[in-house]
């Protein structure tokens, strides 16, 4: 009897002595209001729902619950910085700014604070050089990879030779929209195509001049770096002038259901780059339905599950969770810090076996991250819109970009940043 009491007391004492693990905090810089809410809502839903799933199905990450702290930015850079400042003290492990403007503001702040930033498919492209941008990650692909994917697709579509042809770039007249220009200029020299640049002023509701020019010049391909209403108007205008939609390719931020549905049948055949798979035909969605939506714990109304931007949010959350698991393995503790999270992100490996185990077979490209390369190999796919079925489909695998050109540009731009900011290149 005494022995039992002693044992019970010992167990109680050991439980009491075990430190209570704090939740692993993942801030979500949402924009559920404002002009871009239609795009912000599905991403935020997907991001939050995946963490809810991990908590409900797996008991958290390494046994520690994940906690999402939502902060509304309205896609406004100042508010985004406020969100960062107000949440970083909560033990934030990684920020997904969801805006190129906010990312640029957070690069010096987060680096100084030792918190990693994951700008997935946006932000500063040269942040792929981890020797300069120690805390910034932009895997699995960046804008320059995207420009190269689009050109590669045009080359393949032209039978392997695009020399003498014309590609028009319709772009948002902002730092974001101008990102692919340098890469496209280099690629035009290499492949011998003519590049025509057509800027569209924010917000892009009136694009008659640009599409009249396209109608006059009849470029062989039109690429688009658009956002928000600019996408819908461009796709409608392209349909109006009867531009062949299968020659019209948008960046992944111009390739959601929101962008094509307003144009109805006119958008049929439109293509967009993809850094992850589309649709809801993956086992993980059964789990999301069972553990999240049916349990009444969905972040939104549950009506966005399987849309392109929901999938992107979910994919970003999956990459964060896998990086956290990697960090836990590296440091031998479940209670990781932002610095450990950074190490986990830098050692992240996403392979097919891992994605299949997560119920996401072929959901994204396989890649690994290193100190030298925070952007991964830059694989990307092409998706195409079927207006009658109202769904996107991948029409290619995840294929490489022209890293010979892109790596040189990354090295040049990151070296300039390092010189401006007195950063000594190197690995931590």
């Amino acid at each position: 009897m005494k022995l039992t009491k002693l044992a019970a007391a010992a167990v109680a004492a050991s439980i009491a002595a075990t430190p209570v693990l704090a939740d692993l905090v993942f801030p979500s810089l949402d924009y559920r209001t404002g002009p871009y809410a239609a795009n912000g809502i599905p991403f935020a839903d997907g991001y939050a729902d995946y963490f809810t799933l991990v908590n409900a199905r797996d008991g958290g990450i390494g046994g520690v619950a994940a906690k999402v702290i939502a902060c509304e930015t309205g896609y406004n850079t100042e508010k985004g910085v406020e969100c960062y400042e107000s949440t970083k003290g909560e033990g934030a492990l990684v920020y997904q700014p969801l805006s190129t403007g906010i990312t640029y503001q957070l690069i010096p702040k987060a680096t100084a604070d030792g918190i990693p930033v994951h700008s997935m498919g946006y932000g500063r492209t040269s942040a792929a050089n981890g020797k300069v941008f120690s805390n910034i990650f932009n895997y699995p692909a960046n804008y320059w990879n995207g420009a190269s994917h689009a050109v590669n697709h045009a080359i393949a579509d032209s039978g392997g030779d695009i020399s003498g042809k014309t590609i028009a770039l319709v772009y948002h007249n902002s730092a974001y929209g101008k990102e692919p220009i340098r890469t496209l200029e280099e690629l035009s020299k290499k492949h011998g195509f003519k590049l025509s640049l057509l800027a569209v002023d924010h917000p892009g509701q009136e694009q008659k001049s640009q599409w009249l020019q396209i109608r006059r010049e009849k470029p062989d391909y039109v690429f688009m770096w658009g956002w928000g209403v600019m996408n819908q108007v461009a796709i409608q205008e392209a349909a109006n002038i009867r531009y062949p939609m299968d020659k019209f390719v948008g960046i992944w931020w111009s390739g959601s259901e929101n962008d094509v549905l307003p144009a109805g049948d006119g958008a049929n055949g439109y293509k967009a780059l993809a850094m992850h798979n589309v649709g809801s035909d993956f086992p993980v969605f059964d789990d999301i339905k069972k553990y999240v939506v049916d349990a009444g714990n969905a972040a939104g109304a549950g009506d966005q599950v399987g849309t392109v931007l929901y999938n992107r949010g979910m994919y970003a959350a999956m990459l964060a969770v896998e990086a956290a698991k990697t960090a836990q393995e590296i440091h031998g503790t479940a209670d990781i810090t932002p610095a450990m999270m950074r190490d986990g992100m830098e050692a992240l490996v996403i392979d097919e076996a891992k994605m299949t185990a997560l119920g996401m077979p072929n959901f994204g490209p396989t890649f690994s991250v290193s100190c030298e390369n925070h952007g991964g190999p830059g694989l990307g796919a092409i998706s195409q819109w079927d207006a009658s079925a109202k769904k996107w489909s991948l029409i290619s695998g995840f294929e490489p970009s022209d890293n010979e050109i892109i790596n040189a540009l990354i090295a040049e731009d990151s070296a300039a940043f390092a010189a401006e900011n007195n950063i000594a290149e190197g690995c931590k």
Partner: protein
Amino acid sequence: MSADFYYAIEVILNGLMAGVMYSLVALGFVLIFKASGIFNYAQGVMALFAALTLVGFQNGEIPFSHLINAVFGTDIHHFGWHMPAFFAILCSLAVMILFAFLVEKYILKHLVNQEPIILFMATIGLAYFMEGFGDLMWGADIKKLDVGIPQGGNIWLEENTAFLGGDDFYGFYIDNLDIWATIFAAILVISLVIFSQYTKTGRALRAVADDHQAALSVGISLRSIWVIVWAIAGFVALVAGIMWGSKSGVQFSLSLIALKALPVLMLGGFTSIPGAIIGGLIIGVGEKLFEFLIGAPFLGGATENWFAYMLALLFLVFRPQGLFGEKIIERV
């Protein structure tokens, strides 16, 4: 004539059409400013709200369904019917008239005799309230708007003008939607002119516009006039919302169309209905032609917004009241 000459004409034609679209937005501003001296910051949001309401009626969406579902755990979204466009427009118009009553009752009535800047600030508040209210009522997703207006290039015009400029000319391109917008704008302006010139209420509107105090002294109810003018501005917002929403889908960026109306107002004057039309046409043609001749070939493009505001600024310098605005002379 070379193909470039005909393309320049095409640009002018499309500029005129774009100008009509800008004028549709500017008209709402003019109506309210003329009758009450208020620069209605909420005019763009009114167009958005009207279009959201129209799509909501058409698709049989249950207003506030997201809120109801969140509070009561229900799963309701639609009534299950699809309303014909004509009836949906009438219902939306009724909502905009109700909106005018509510604005007068809860905002304007309490701000009589306040400084114009106070009234302007009130409309800023109204704009943000309506944006959130519209989001709550109909959801933030992008909605397709289809009231049966044809879209796409007018093929008849293209085919019958293609011979003009040789092999490099593909015929004049004009969007059918823009043609219909021009027809609606013409009907709207003629109706407004007839209403203001030949009806008792219209004359009362003009009297209030000329002199509030004098109008009040002869028994014209300022409050009724405000309700009427906000209801008419609501109707104009509905027409603008239909036209712009058909191009881009109905989404919250629709409220930003107000930005396209500002240079039109600066150029045409804040108090003139014909000024809104002429101003819109000048801005539309000017910005498109500048982009075609100078902006795209020499300046990297995207000069339209810049040119529109530059042109408006020039007018402000040399004719502050705009082309058709009333010159206000304050005597000390």
